[in-house]
Structures are given as C-alpha cells and as structure tokens.
C-alpha cells in the first residue's frame, strides 16, 4: 500500500478551472483548497492559454511555484503571490518574475537559472542555493546556508540581496555570484562561518560583523569604484521595491569579502 502524498488524489485540470478567474490581462487563482500539484497544474495551464500575469491568492504552503515553467519558446511571465508559498519557491526558475506579499519558506530560488524573485517578508533556509543567474531580493531576514554554492560564469552572475540579517553559513562554498547583506533594523549580525569554503564570487556586508564570524577562506578587501556602482544599482532596486531610502543605506560602510585562494583545500590531501 503505497500512497504518494504528492500525487495521490489530484483532481483533473477541468475540475480545477473553477478556481481561476480570468481578467482582462491577467488571471487570478484562489489557492486555498489546492494541493501543490493542482496549483502548479493550473498555473501552467493558464500560461499555455495565453496568460502572462498571474495573481495567486490564499497561498498556504504549496511548493515549487514557478518551477514548471520552462517553455521552448521563451515565454516570460509574472506571478504575484498573496499568502505563504511553500518550500522551493522558484526552484529552477527559468527567467520569470515572482513577487511574494508575505513570508517565504525554505529553498527560495533553488538552482534558479534566471529571472527575479522579490519577497516582501522573510525567507527560510538555503535561499539561492546553487543559484546560477537572476536576482533575488528578500526584504527581511534569511535562515541558514543562504547562497550556498552559488555559481557564476563570465557575465552570468546571480545576485542575492537580503535586507535584514542572515543565520550561519551564509555563502558557504560560494563559487561565483554576488551576495549583499544590508543589516537594516538589526543591531549586529549574529551569524558565524560566513563564507566558509568560499572559492569564487563576492559578498558585501553592511552592519556590525567581527572577523571571527567569517570562514577561514574569506579575506576582507577594499571597496572599489565598480563595487559601489554595483551596490548602487541593486540597492536602488531594493529600495524601490520595499520603500527604503537608497542614500541612507549607501552612506554606510560596506565590508567586501572575497575568497583568499581558488584552491583552499590543496594542502589537505597526501598523494
């Protein structure tokens, strides 16, 4: 007797259409009674029928929103979510835009390839895990292991901007990409092991943090002009999304963290 809670008892798409309200240029889905797969089935169906703007209401824990949206003909959509989306929001995101009016959970932007995720609230653990492109903006705090193994290549550079603080292991074994931690409304950062195993990419941290909170593979270097240019660019977007004042934020000191070596574990092995 094997009951798979993910797919057992999922209703057919025609039964689910009653939860959709089509507007002039968008569609609204009431997710209150929908299971994960049902909601994602509906989202995909709406887009296949030509909708490019979706509003999801009463979302409560449904996972993988935005994941099943790889289309050969490069369609790009915008999804606005009201409620609390479940784990892996925007996992493998393929260039779409997701805005959450509420808190997100774990795995936001997991292996995201391109696109934008904006969360008007906090996010959980492993935000931007192995992210490879696109941008994520979180207004409040994030949990453990944000940006773990983030990657970048040439001009494909993922960006994670967090308005509050993060918990331990931020940027753990980062190989590329940019992480910005703004520390707004926080007296000091309490995270440890920041950047442990980092071997690529860069982190910008605003707010109080001590050297012993950083991993041994991390070095602190001077900010340069291009760093400030980049920060201006993302902080302005952050402020326009969440209603902060860019000059107040940019007026403060930022710490720039980079990896000290490309091969931090060269001396660990004996041949």
């Amino acid at each position, binding site marked *: *007797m094997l*009951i*798979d*809670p*993910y797919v057992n008892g999922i209703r057919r798409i025609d039964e689910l259409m009653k939860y959709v309200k089509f507007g002039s240029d968008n569609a609204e889905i009431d997710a209150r009674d929908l299971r*994960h797969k049902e909601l994602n089935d509906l989202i995909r169906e709406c887009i296949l029928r030509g909708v490019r703007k979706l509003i999801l209401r009463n979302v*409560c*824990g449904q*996972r993988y929103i935005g994941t099943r949206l790889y289309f050969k003909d490069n369609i790009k959509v915008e999804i606005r979510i009201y*409620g*609390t*989306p*479940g*784990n892996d929001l925007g996992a493998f995101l393929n260039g779409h835009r997701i805005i959450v009016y509420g*808190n997100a*959970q*774990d795995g936001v932007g997991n292996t995201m390839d391109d696109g934008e995720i904006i969360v008007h609230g*906090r996010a*959980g*653990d492993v935000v931007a895990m192995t992210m490879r492109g696109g941008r994520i903006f979180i207004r409040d705090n994030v*949990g*453990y292991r944000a940006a773990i193994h983030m990657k970048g290549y040439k001009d494909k550079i993922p960006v994670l901007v967090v308005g509050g603080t993060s*918990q*331990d*292991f931020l940027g753990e074994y980062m190989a590329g990409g940019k992480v910005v931690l703004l520390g707004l409304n926080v007296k000091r950062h*309490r995270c*440890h092991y920041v950047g442990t195993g980092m071997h690529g990419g860069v982190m910008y941290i605003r707010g109080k943090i001590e050297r*012993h909170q950083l991993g041994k593979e991390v070095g602190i270097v001077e900010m340069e002009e291009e760093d400030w240019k980049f920060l201006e660019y993302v902080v302005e977007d952050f402020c326009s999304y969440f209603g902060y004042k860019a000059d107040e934020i940019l007026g403060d000191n930022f710490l720039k963290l980079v990896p000290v070596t490309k091969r931090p574990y060269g001396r660990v092995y004996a041949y």
Partner: protein
Amino acid sequence: MIRDDKEFSACGLFGVMDRSGRRFNGEMAIRALKNMSVRGNGLGAGFAVYGLYKDFKEYYCLHVMIQNKDLDVKKKVDGFLAKNFDVVYDEEIPVNENSKTVDPPMFWRYFVHPKSHGENISDDDYVIKNVMYINTKIKDAYVISSGKNMGVFKGVGFPEDIADFFMIEEYKGYIWIAHTRFPTNTPGWWGGAHPFCILDWTVVHNGEISSYGTNKRYLEMFGYYCTLKTDTEVMAYIFDLLMRRQRLPIEVVAKILAPPMWDQIDLMDEKKRRFYTALRMVYSPLLVNGPWTVIVAHHGEMFGLTDRIRLRPITAGEKGDLLFLSSEESAIRAVCPDLDRVWTPHGGEPVVGRLSSGALKRVVR
C-alpha cells in the same frame, strides 16, 4: 514483518499552546498537519494532548497498546498493574471502527495510583520503573503514555485517519503536539509513531539522531531502556533525566543537547567559557548529533529546539496567548493566518512557552 532496527524519522511537526491554560479541541493540530501532508507518507501520525482528563487529573493515566488485540496479553497487563498500582478506573480507549486505519492494535487506558511500596523512590520514578518493565518484559504490550491529565494517541496512518480513529476532536487540551511521519522501514509498527512519551514528557521529532548509540547506552546506566525501535525515544528519556530528575532548566538543557562549537566557546569570556566547557565535558554522551528538530511538552511548558547547526527547519509564531511551533510557517498560517510575530531561532536555541503559575495550579494537582 517488523525488523528489529532503528527507524528513521522524516516528518512534519506541529505544536500549539495556549499560555493562559485555556483548553481547545484538536482542529488546529489536525488542520496544520494536513497542510504539511507531503512531509509524511501515511505510515505514521500521532497527537499528544495536555489537560484532557480533568476528572482524573491527580492519577497517572497509562495508555497501553496491546498488539494483535491479544486478550492474554491484556490479562498479563491487568495482573501486573493490579499488583503494583491501585487502578482507580480503566476502559478501552474509544475508537472509530470505520476509520481508514488498517489492523489497529487495542488501546486501553488505566487511571492509576502507585501502591504504597517499600522502595525509597518517588512516585514518578516508581511509575517509570513499572513502565519499563511492561515495555521490556510483557511481550506485545507497550505503554505509550504515562503522565497525569495527558495522553498520547498515535499509530500507522495519515494524521486525519489517526485523528478519526481516536476521535480526537472530542478531546480538549491546552497543549497539543502532533506529528506526521515518513518512515523508511516497513510499515505496521504502531509503536514507532510519534509522539514518544515517558511520564508527562512528550517529544515529536524530525530528523535522525546519529549519536543514538552513544545516547542510548548512557541512558541505560540510569534505568531507561529503549524498546520502541525509534531513535526519538532517547529524547523523551533525556528530558526526563535532565529536567525532572536533575532539575536543570530548559535553557541549560538546550546547551547540553546542542552546545556551541569549541571555536566559539574559546572566544567567550572566562565565566561563560568555564560554564560551557564543564557542560560539554560532563554531558558529552548527551550531545545529540545529527539533524533534528524536536517539539517537547510537559505540563506547563512547550519548547522547540533544533540541532547545533540547524539542519532541520522550525518556525515559531505567536498570536495573543497562543504559541505555535511547526516545521513550516505555512502550517501555522493555515490555522492562524494573522500572527503577531513569526521567527526562526538559531540552532541550539530553544523557543519556550510557559503557563502562568496560576494557570499551572489549575491544571495539575
């Protein structure tokens, strides 16, 4: 076929407490677990309720599970209890025969008081001793809860099926903790579901305890025997040992189970450094390693705690007197969409809900 090795716990947790002591029914717990149904796979679920036996609140209530509905086993249990306790009242736990559960065991509840005994131990330790006896020596009988004015209802099935089987909605309590399970072993063992309980300590757990062998063998030195084939069992005994017997507060116990790392202890001031070094040195066999989140309750308190590098999630939420703990925020929002505060603690830092002392007096004798 039930294999005699350790089950692993992949799961969803939920706990809710009304800190004013007001009692409420199980609807919130059931609905929250339903929201997290993908965290389980229908092979285990359970509930613990505090404050449900108002009329018998000064007696220990033993929920006994009898495998295969074997009446001979029940006779043995009856005989054993009659010898060692005054059995004030007992009855079969009412169940819904038409629920979707398959082949359930028989559940019986006994309200008991220890018989006067010549031994120099407290009533609580006396009860533990006898519970351990039933669990280890009377085949096919297991005591799944043994506290006063509280009870555990658990088994193999989805949360809504277990709730239906035990007719949970009829009970009222001021703390509910609940669990949905994804075991990786063969189904059929009702005793392996969570919550685990000893006296009035209940634990629901998400994760796997990689230090199980170490923890278990240390606890055996103090008379606690692990018989329910699931690593979570050690957690219940650890809390009974440290908090009830050794009277350590949760703030210290959290640091025993999930202590800070040495490289952080080495940077603390002298006083704190000595404190943490002593804790780690003396209680090293109770460091609980591996990924875990637990929600623990006993009369008057509910806490949530995670492992020292927070490998499993937990979210805490507050609304007025209600304190919520869950594996996912959405489960809390499903029962209480509008919260005053939502947060996630650091690894090793407990979230604590306490009854005011007036309310505590009303709940237990």
